[in-house]
């Protein structure tokens, strides 16, 4: 009877029928303004240090182009999505389940009723292997009969599988040609289609194999390549974010209850004076809190996708040596000659437990050949040098900038032991020798602190909004609060609060009208 539209958010009556995949609106942009061309002349950096050369490290955020998309199963008020995407719609999906790129073994999974048939077709003329036993099979393209790979295959008849449906896993050799060959072969099997992002998890969820928090936590666990990510993913399962959201939802519910009381009882019941004014104040305060949190919350996304650390500074300062030292592999060619690095070289590393994209850049100098000039331009672009590095150093403060700066003075081994150290007017800095490794521990500790500030250390501080879904609803809540103004039509103003509360309760659950009435009758002597 109430198919199709989910009406209200009482926990007892949640309906998941309308689960749908959402997308982050628009393409995520790097939030930091990286001016494409920097025409301002290079600052004279020499006065900043008495020891040359300098290595600046800046950390900057890199947002992924597309965030992981997951089912937003907790939407309480949603319409049924297209049948093609609805769980249990009969389609069989397949996808590469291991990471992209070259690797030893790649795992390709299918889920759905045609999984068994697909396995039979690819491994013809052999029959299905025994359930849940690894078997070695020759995979061939069903169209040409051409052999693709000798692979380990696993057959999981439903419901005893990850998704609850019939599933097959192909463990093939990790070369791109093999992987794409098997994927194409699967695509040619009738009834199979490539999976939407997160669709395996969503099917598992739809078949009751996972609940929503598990789904979200699982997604992060899969991507927790590092310790910090793993800890945050585990913390999310504990519902700390939910706790924070529940606090906001409580405030909002109270404000809404007072407005609702004014609508349902205002005129011939004696509500106290100032009920609406008090609601106004609470809504404004909530707006401020949410706004602050949302700005802060970007850190959560940084942690999941990796912070961007750019090593920059004058030529021949030893930037490439530092990059090689930090990544423990020869990423960049090093030589005593200034200007050896002419382009931005990026390498993903694990720094003190945080995922980091480390960039080596060309030394910043003028009057060199066109290739190096381009390298210098890219280096500037890469760290938006003038806007942040110099300003930060000059102001001796990192607080206002979303880019953080560590001043590292390399080649400390060249300092004479008795000679003058860095002058008292130097900005805070670290001494390092890439040759002896002296000062590396201090640098790593400083980096850990900086990265924790940028990414948020999941073992301390407020829980981060790792899921863009949370950010989406908090933003939706904030937007709706912006429309709350007590116009002539109080019902319209109340609607804004209802929309805002709806967003919050999609994160926290609950949200029925009984809660509102409970507050009304607790706070007011109404009724005749």
């Amino acid at each position, binding site marked *: 009877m109430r198919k199709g539209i989910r009406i209200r958010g009482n926990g*007892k009556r949640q309906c998941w029928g309308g689960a749908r995949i959402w997308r982050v609106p628009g393409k995520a942009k790097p939030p930091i303004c990286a001016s494409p061309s920097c025409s301002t002349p290079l600052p004279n950096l020499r006065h900043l240090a008495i020891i040359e050369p300098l290595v600046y490290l800046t950390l900057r955020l890199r947002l992924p182009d597309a965030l992981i998309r997951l089912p937003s199963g907790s939407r309480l008020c949603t319409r049924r999505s297209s049948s093609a995407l609805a769980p249990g719609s009969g389609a069989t999906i397949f996808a590469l389940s291991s990471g992209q790129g070259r690797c030893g073994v790649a795992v390709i999974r299918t889920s759905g009723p045609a999984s068994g048939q697909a396995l039979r077709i690819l491994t013809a003329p052999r029959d299905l292997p025994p359930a849940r036993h690894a078997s070695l099979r020759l995979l061939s393209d069903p169209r040409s009969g051409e052999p693709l790979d000798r692979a380990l295959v696993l057959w999981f008849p439903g419901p005893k599988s990850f998704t609850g449906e019939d599933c097959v896993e192909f463990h093939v050799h990790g070369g791109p040609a093999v992987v794409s060959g098997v994927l194409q072969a699967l695509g040619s099997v009738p009834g199979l289609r490539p999976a939407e992002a997160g669709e395996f998890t969503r099917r598992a969820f739809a078949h009751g194999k996972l609940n929503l928090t598990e789904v979200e936590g699982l997604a992060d666990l899969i991507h927790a390549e590092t310790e910090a990510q793993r800890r945050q993913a585990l913390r999310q399962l504990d519902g700390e974010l939910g706790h924070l959201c529940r606090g906001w939802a409580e405030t909002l519910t109270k404000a809404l209850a007072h407005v609702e009381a004014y609508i349902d009882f205002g005129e011939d019941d004696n509500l106290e004076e100032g009920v609406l004014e008090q609601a106004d104040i609470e809504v404004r305060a909530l707006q401020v809190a949410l706004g602050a949190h949302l700005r802060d919350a970007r850190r959560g996304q940084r942690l999941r996708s990796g912070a961007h650390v750019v090593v920059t500074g004058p030529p021949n300062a030893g930037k490439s040596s530092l990059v090689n030292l930090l990544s423990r592999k020869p990423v960049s060619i090093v030589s005593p000659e200034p200007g050896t690095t002419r382009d931005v070289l990026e390498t993903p590393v694990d720094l003190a437990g945080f995922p980091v994209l480390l960039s080596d850049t060309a030394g910043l100098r003028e009057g060199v050949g066109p290739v190096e000039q381009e390298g210098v331009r890219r280096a500037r672009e890469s760290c938006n040098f003038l806007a942040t590095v110099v300003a930060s150093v000059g102001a001796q403060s990192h607080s206002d900038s979303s880019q953080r700066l560590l001043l590292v003075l390399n080649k400390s081994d060249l300092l004479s032991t008795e000679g003058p150290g860095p002058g008292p007017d130097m900005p805070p800095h670290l001494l390092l020798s890439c040759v002896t490794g002296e000062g590396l521990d201090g640098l790593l500790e400083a980096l850990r602190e900086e990265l924790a500030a940028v990414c948020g250390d999941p073992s301390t501080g407020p829980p981060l909004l790792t899921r863009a879904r949370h950010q989406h609803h908090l933003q939706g809540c904030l937007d709706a609060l912006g429309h709350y103004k007590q116009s002539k*039509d109080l019902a319209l103003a109340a609607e804004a609060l209802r929309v805002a509360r709806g967003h919050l309760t999609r994160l926290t659950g609950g949200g029925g009208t009984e809660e509102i009435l409970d507050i009304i009758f607790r706070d007011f002597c109404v009724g005749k």
Partner: protein
Amino acid sequence: MFSFRGCGGRVAASFTKRQFPLPRLSSDSAGPRTPHFDVIVIGGGHAGTEAATAAARCGSRTLLLTHRVDTIGQMSCNPSFGGIGKGHLMREVDALDGLCSRICDQSGVHYKVLNRCKGPAVWGLRAQIDRKLYKQNMQKEILSTPLLTVQEGAVEDLILTEPEPEHTGKCRVSGVVLVDGSTVYSESVILTTGTFLRGMIIIGLEMHPAGRLGDQPSIGLAQTLEKLGFVVGRLKTGTPPRIAKESINFSILNKQTPDNPSLPFSFMNETVWIKPEDQLPCYLTHTNPRVDEIVLKNLHLNSHVKETIRGPRYCPSIESKVLRFPNRQHQVWLEPEGMDSDLIYPQGLSMTLPAELQEKMITCIRGLEKAKVIQPGYGVQYDYLDPRQITPSLETHLVQRLFFAGQINGTTGYEEAAAQGVIAGINASLRVNRKPPFVISRTEGYIGVLIDDLTTLGTSEPYRMFTSRVEFRLSLRPDNADSRLTLRGYKEAGCVSQQRYERACWMKSSLEEGISVLKSIEFSSSKWKNLIPEASISTSRSLPVRYTFLIQTFSHFL
């Protein structure tokens, strides 16, 4: 579809077995003269009258069984109809051609729309009603409704038979047994017995079994229902004392005058029966610390207040107001009971103190210093049936073709009862004709919210309608109840008269025409800015702007 008047000859207000003009007389073993109806409605309150007339409008031969014909249409508590949320329900009942809105337009003595300054979605149509007129007009309507028979009699038991295999339920109801042992057969039965199931009246420390004061409680029926396995809960409510009008000093009190012009409840009426200048005023006074003192000193004499049974939070007794919100002045509205009534209803003074203390307390209140209490206030405790035992069509899960409507489902208020009555009447009739049930969803009306809340969540206190319960409040306005429900009621239920249907169609097409005219309007943005200063519209746009665009930008979050 039918005419309201001039059919009196076909209806019997009470009858003996030899005087059945309408029902089939069954020829089975139960006896050749055993009457047989399509629908039997037990109870003649606000749910029962709406249920009986709705079933009859749908074409079912209907029997209304009530203790006393002369109490049909009795307003047992407050002398008013409507209010915020309740006015919405009345408009929806009217859209389905129910009675109460039309009767109120003929019987009110003070019409006032609440919440006028808070937006049209939450207007609360309300009126003080003359009890006597309401009863008279209701009885006239009931006794002239075609296909509807009225009989006096107390129901003692239900007749149960084998269930229909294609439906759930452990048995099927096929009639009722009256106190005198006689039987009446029917295809469906609607139970609207209000507070009569094991009703207890409490004044001070005295308790005696009763429904409303002076009526008999239904005990046999309560036992039958319990034996069938229905889960029963207990609720309480109360009513204030009635005060002699001439004993009140109105001259020192705040006077509230009615609206001018009056807004009628029914879509079928352009005006109400009475001119605004002929209507009666209401008066406002307040309690004071001496009232608190009397309440607190005499709690030991007040068994009703001390009970743990849940009472309505929004209709609290003066005792519970004093206990929960001490040291405050509480409002007391003095409402007329009718044009020629010498009683005043002190809204807000519901109480269960011993009778002599009630007058003592009332005379502490400003304007009531010399007040005479004509009838003391009292509390009522009664059984209700957990409404999660009924479907959205109000049929019980346990017993096929048995429907519950009104206060028996744990609601409070005339309007809530009337709304359920209409739905039960329609569905009892549709069930007999083997048609799909008529269900209003939460997205379509306050009735839908009411029934959905009851049938899915149940209730632990008497359930009252509020606009805050309604998710789609902005769309479910009192003014558009006809376009939401009348067309459906006509096509799917057959409960709407041709005249009303045509009027609703005319209204719908007029609105559509108006909207298309509005959509076609284009002005420059600066002209729009002049016309609607609130709209946030950029005047820098050089192209003409359509009204629809303006609406989109104006109500962005909707």
